[in-house]
């Protein structure tokens, strides 16, 4: 007997399921300015590399008339494919099928591909576009979320997990992205919140739009929940692919090496930084003047701009950068910037990416709001993350390194492997003005011309402490370098650190100041 009939039957079944929620629902999706789930998957993956599983899964809902409904694939697509030839696991919620709502089988499909990703040690990309829990399935849908969150946590630090928010992601659903490494949002399309505007209005009487409550801008600028912000889905997919060029496929492997390239000649390191420590400049230009091809891929660009984090390559290999940004809030450390840096440091440490810290900051941000928001426990995260990190850790002090910030920013005391300082570096307990006002208070107050005496004392303090040589004399700084030597010193120090072995005491896990 010929197989033909069976094959035709399979094709017919597939064709039916591949329609998702059907023509009308697809039209609605397109009208919202969104791609369909399948289009998204195929746009992210290499051409013709996608293979789908669980296409014939059917939902489990048996109440409220749901048993009569057919939900193709139960509203989620799962499968494997490649990006730049390397394998990845992917799932995409299909909003055209029951609003992408999450029921038991929907969740089982997601957890199946998550288990697969973890076992196969490949990155997991999750595309979220869902109205939330499928209320008709009751506690089963809650169980589904729980199973996903648990796997997110298990996979954390083993394989990269990327969450792409391309539609609503509300209620409990937001906690899966929050547990993953990188969250991508797109203007006008992404919406994330725990409680939506409707509920907020009826229960609390506060009126706010979805966009203002949890749109892409809000999460990339105010909450810090999103790491990458794009204006279109296609731009978002490019960001995903670019990120994947920088990160390793799992925690037992190095990121792919690229042919080394020199930085572009237009980034002239000596012309970027003003000698006067009160004058601003863009630290990203300093990073671009030391990384290969001046290609710096920034993470969380729009959140807590006073610290800059991101990936670059040196001698073709991925390096993580953490740098104070004097151009924004003078580069101070505060609650947000501490959270931002600490998480990135832990990411790099988990995935064996060397860390380069560029330091130029006047200390922690003073203010009641900061103190009451808990700048103590937030700031402590940086100390914890740097101390815990055992990847190669190199610091370059460019200008200011004052007080607690000096200690926090990967100082020798946090066990930096190499500490370099520019001749413009000022390593001190605080800025010269503040210090002189305290040390010489009596003399300044007693003087006939207090301002003149203050200026004199500030100058005296500056001459004594506002330089790298006091710290260098104690060995806290390994060497004072000329700005032009920075790239070579970084290349060399990363090279000699390539077999670094650094152990920490055995423990189940530490207790970081979450």
């Amino acid at each position, binding site marked *: 007997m010929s197989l033909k009939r069976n094959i035709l039957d399979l094709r017919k079944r597939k064709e039916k399921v591949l329609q998702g929620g059907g023509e009308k629902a697809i039209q609605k999706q397109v009208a919202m300015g969104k791609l369909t789930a399948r289009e998204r998957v195929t746009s992210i993956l290499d051409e013709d590399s996608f293979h789908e599983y669980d296409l014939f899964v059917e939902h489990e809902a048996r109440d409220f008339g749901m048993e009569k409904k057919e939900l193709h694939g139960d509203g989620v697509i799962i499968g494997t494919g490649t990006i730049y030839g390397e394998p990845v696991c992917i799932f995409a919620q299909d909003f055209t099928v029951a609003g992408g709502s999450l029921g038991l089988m929907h969740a089982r499909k997601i957890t199946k591909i998550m288990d697969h990703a973890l076992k196969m040690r490949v990155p997991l990309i999750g595309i979220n576009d869902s109205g939330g829990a499928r209320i008709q399935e009751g506690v089963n849908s809650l169980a589904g979320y729980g199973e996903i969150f648990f796997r997110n946590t298990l996979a954390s630090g083993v394989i990269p997990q990327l969450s792409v928010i391309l539609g609503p992601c509300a209620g409990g659903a937001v906690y899966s992205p929050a547990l993953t490494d990188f969250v991508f949002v797109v203007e006008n399309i992404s919406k994330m919140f725990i409680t939506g505007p409707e509920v907020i209005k009826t229960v609390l009487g506060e009126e706010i739009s979805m966009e203002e409550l949890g749109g892409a801008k809000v999460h990339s600028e105010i909450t810090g929940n999103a790491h990458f912000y794009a204006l279109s889905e296609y731009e978002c997919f490019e960001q995903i692919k670019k990120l994947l060029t920088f990160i390793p496929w799992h925690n037992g492997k190095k990121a792919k090496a690229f042919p080394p390239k020199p930085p572009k000649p237009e980034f002239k390191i000596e012309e970027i930084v003003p000698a006067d420590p009160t004058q601003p400049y863009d630290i990203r230009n300093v990073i671009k003047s030391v990384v290969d091809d001046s290609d710096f891929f920034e993470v969380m660009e729009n959140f807590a701009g006073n610290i800059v984090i991101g990936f670059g390559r040196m001698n073709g290999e991925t390096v993580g950068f953490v740098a104070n940004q004097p151009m*924004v809030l003078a580069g101070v450390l505060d609650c947000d910037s501490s959270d931002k840096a600490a998480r990135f440091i832990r990411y790099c440490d988990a995935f064996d990416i060397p860390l380069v810290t560029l330091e130029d900051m006047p200390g922690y941000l003073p203010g009641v709001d900061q103190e009451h928001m808990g700048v103590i426990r937030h700031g402590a995260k940086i100390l914890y993350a740097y101390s815990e990190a055992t990847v190669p850790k190199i610091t370059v002090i460019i200008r200011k390194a004052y007080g607690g910030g000096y200690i926090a920013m990967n100082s020798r005391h946090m066990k930096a492997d190499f500490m370099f300082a520019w001749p413009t570096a000022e390593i001190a307990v605080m800025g010269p003005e503040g210090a002189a006002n305290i040390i010489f208070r009596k003399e300044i107050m007693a003087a006939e011309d207090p301002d003149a005496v203050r200026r004199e004392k500030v100058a005296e303090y500056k001459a004594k402490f506002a330089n790298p040589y006091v710290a260098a004399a104690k060995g806290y700084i390994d060497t004072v370098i000329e700005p032009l030597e920075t790239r070579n010193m970084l290349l060399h120090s990363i090279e000699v650190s390539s077999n670094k072995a650094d152990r920490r005491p055995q423990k189940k896990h530490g207790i970081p100041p979450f």
Partner: protein
Amino acid sequence: MGKITEFDIDGTLYQTELTKKFENRKMWKKPDPKQIKSFIPGTIVEIFVKEGQKVKAGEGLMILEAMKMKNRIEMPFDGIIKKIHVTEGVKVPNRLLMLEIE
């Protein structure tokens, strides 16, 4: 670069941009114990007191229902009700001045 402002850290003035979040931060104000403010957004379901009434510490002033919980707002110390800014049935946002005491 955006708008550069002078920014004081420990007496040194730095030239730098500010962030939207920083500029929109709430300034701290010393709380006035004579002002009863809502601690959660919700609905005033019942008011027990009138303006001018003498009330002892611990006595109920009103019920603020929020998140399906009826919260009894109590008088913090002995005093007289100076002004009531809410009526029964109104929805109140968080930190709204509801009642003043003399």
